């Protein structure tokens, strides 16, 4: 009985808040011009149309492929590189400020260069997603590496641990939780990179969908696309948090 009560206390406010939000959206949409804002019901109807009539699912898949390719290349390069920097102190000290600089630089500013050098293919877009995602991974992995106590490495070495075992038993478990913080940040950034690439390089996927809708003054289409991308953003962020928390248990 208390469980039910708990569940009610937990979920009822959420649903009430969401329903009130939708109602406000609906009311605002009905009372303003359709070019400015469309009600929730209209947005959903348009979304359904896009799914049934237009190639919405195909666009979604295009975007997903771009996102996943760039993101996993960033992960595959960022993690081992970060750990290498962690292991070789001179490298880490030397490269740290440069990683910091690139981490703090608004990398969107590089898109015009990528466009004029690499053109409109798939590769430049992957490069954009990669650039957005790799620095959080790298930065946090190196940050994690700094947290390894040198004593651990020293003890391991005095027991004549092999380099491979050292990586597996010390480096990996100690840096991975930090890497996962980087992964969570990288998910958000890669999503921005994906949309930016689709806006400013060749138009494909969800970016094209939303651009097309906006150029045709199809406000309902714009709202529908934003709703979908927003929900994807929330979902991916949740996923990132879950992954981060899972590995955070290793931290002590």
């Amino acid at each position, binding site marked *: 009985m208390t469980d039910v009560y708990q569940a009610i206390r937990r979920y009822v406010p959420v649903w009430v808040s969401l329903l009130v939000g939708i109602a406000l959206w609906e009311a605002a949409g009905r009372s303003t011009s359709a070019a400015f804002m469309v009600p929730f019901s209209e947005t959903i109807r348009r979304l359904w149309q896009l799914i049934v009539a237009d190639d919405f699912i195909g666009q979604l898949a295009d975007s997903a492929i771009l996102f996943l390719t760039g993101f996993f290349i960033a992960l595959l390069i960022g993690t081992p590189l970060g750990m290498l920097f962690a292991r070789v102190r001179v490298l880490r000290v030397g490269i740290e400020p*440069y990683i910091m*600089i690139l981490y703090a630089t608004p990398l969107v500013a590089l898109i015009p260069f990528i466009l004029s050098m690499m053109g409109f293919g798939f590769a430049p877009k992957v490069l954009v997603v990669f650039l957005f995602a790799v620095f959080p991974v790298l930065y946090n992995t190196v940050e994690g590496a700094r947290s390894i106590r040198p004593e651990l490495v020293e003890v391991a070495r005095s027991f004549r641990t092999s380099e491979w075992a050292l990586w597996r038993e010390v480096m990996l478990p100690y840096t991975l939780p930090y890497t996962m913080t980087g992964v969570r940040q990288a998910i958000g950034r890669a999503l921005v990179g994906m949309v930016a690439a689709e806006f400013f390089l060749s138009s494909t996927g969800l970016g094209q969908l939303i651009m097309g809708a906006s150029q045709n003054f199809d406000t309902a289409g714009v709202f529908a696309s934003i709703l979908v991308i927003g929900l994807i953003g929330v979902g991916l962020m949740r996923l990132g948090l879950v992954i981060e928390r899972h590995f955070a248990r290793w931290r002590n």
Partner: protein
Amino acid sequence: MTESAVNVPISLVRAPKSQPLTERLRATFMPRLITGIVILLVWELVVRALAPAYVAKPSTVLMAIPRVITDPAFLKATAATLTAVAEGLAIALVFGTIIGLLIGRSAAFDRAIRHYVNGFYAMPMIIVLPLFSLWFGYSSATRIATIIFAAIFSIIVNVADGARSVPREYMEVARSFRSNRLSMLIGIVLPSSMPYLLAGFRLAAGRALIGAVVAEFFISIGGLGYYILYNSRSYHHNEAFVGVMLLAAFGIGFELLVNWSTRRFMPWYRRDEKAN
């Protein structure tokens, strides 16, 4: 950094941080300098060997710097972008702080809008551009709106975190002296969430810069982002790259400013990055 040394046997505690200057130079400055030189050299050589002549490389970028920073068009563009970022950040800071305090201190308010704040925060901010350009037209209003949208949610989320973590005793003492809610909010909650506010502001500043650049790309209005876009389209990559360097300098400048003021004004506060 040496926090963990507390529970380590004495014999294993590292040497104290105050090494002589020459030692520090050898240990940190030299590797950094050498890495920097290597990066620039590799960049220069790769571009020279493989890329067309217009592609930016360190030597030509260096030569473009004096030309660009004396160019009135560049200065005007920089001023336009910076003004917009400052205005947008100021607005985001004021409203973000107010909303964040409300969320952090009022359970009802928190329940009502938490999911919206988190939802907007998780949204890749640049997808609102087509909508904003429909709403505000191809004008600087769109840029300001984008900057505010990009910046405000990281401030709200962090201030709310800060407001939630005010020690309960403070509030209890204030309440037993019959202080009213508003003065508690301004006198206790706000100062005590200051470090969180600064952390949020640091994130917001970075996001605001991105928002400004992206908006200028999208609606082609004068500013640093548009300067970069225009010059790289007309194959003036060196000039455009000076713009990128300036943006990077702003990004890093904000970062350093916030870190410095956290250390300077809140020396008791040592929290790991609340970066997002």
